[in-house]
């Protein structure tokens, strides 16, 4: 996993039809994995987000690239999509997205991603600060960001409006 900026750009211009967790199934027991989020688009493409400490993995899921987890599965286990109940306002089309990064240099890491519609209304925000994917609204995210600046000292925001255009919108810096 890498600290790759702009890796969510394949979602730009796409309409999300559902959000789900990846769940571990064993002996008919289903355990949603809170470090995952599965985006399903109108064109049936699926992208999975997996959060680990300080890194994220965001990849398209296909017949040749199955759902993935942070650990190896045993032969009697399988992964399935498990519908998210936290989010109601979809389908919506992503017109832009913002990534929020914390820290500097080698230790910089992605702490949140916000997805926006064409009217700049927030569709959903995803917090990747810890080792789980937290879904939250914009107000919750900003409360968290207020706390993060005291934890990490530096936060930077990057706006992506198309696959070729990247705009730095703001950089806030507080020395600790």
């Amino acid at each position, binding site marked *: 996993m890498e600290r790759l900026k702009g890796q969510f750009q394949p979602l730009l211009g796409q309409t999300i039809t559902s959000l789900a967790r990846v769940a*571990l199934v064993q002996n008919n027991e289903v*355990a949603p*994995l*809170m*470090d995952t989020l599965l985006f399903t688009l109108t064109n049936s493409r699926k992208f999975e987000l997996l959060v*680990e*400490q*300080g*890194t994220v993995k965001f990849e398209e899921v296909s017949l040749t690239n199955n759902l993935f987890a*942070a*650990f190896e599965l*045993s032969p009697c286990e399988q992964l399935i999509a498990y519908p998210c109940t936290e989010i109601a306002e979809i389908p919506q089309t992503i017109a832009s997205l913002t990534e929020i990064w*914390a*820290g500097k240099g080698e*230790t910089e*890491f992605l702490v949140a991603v916000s997805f926006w519609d064409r009217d700049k209304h927030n569709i959903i925000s995803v*917090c990747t*600060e*810890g*080792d*789980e994917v*937290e879904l939250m609204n914009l107000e919750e995210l900003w409360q*968290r960001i207020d*706390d993060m600046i005291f*934890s*990490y000292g530096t936060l930077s925001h990057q706006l992506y409006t198309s696959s070729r255009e990247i705009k730095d919108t703001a950089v806030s810096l507080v020395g*600790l």
Partner: protein
Amino acid sequence: MPCFKKIDSEHLFLIVHKLKKTCERCNALRRQTNSYGSNYLEKFRKHAEQIRRTTGKKEIAKVSSTQGQEQIKTLIEEIVMTGETRQQRYMAIADALWSRKGNAIVIRQPNGEFVTFLEAGKGAALAWRD
């Protein structure tokens, strides 16, 4: 000869009260991990390699085995009981308990329930400042 200042009973009461509060806080910070939450197995599996690496215990059995789970719980207890413990935010937990020994960090709820394991120096663990 040491010089002791004479204190009245009111001041003595206040000092004892403060000492009691300090002890209570210390006990809270060192409280044993009394529960592991519903998804602890997934957390153990996810962080098993980090736990092996940061504790130097390469011989931990597979997490799917009871033996492996007990070994990890023992290591978590050791970090909690012998490491440095602080109280600060982790994700949405405002007063999470952070216990660190070397590069191994155990995160718990304020009531002692295990939340997760972190490796110092990256990601959310950067919030631990020396």
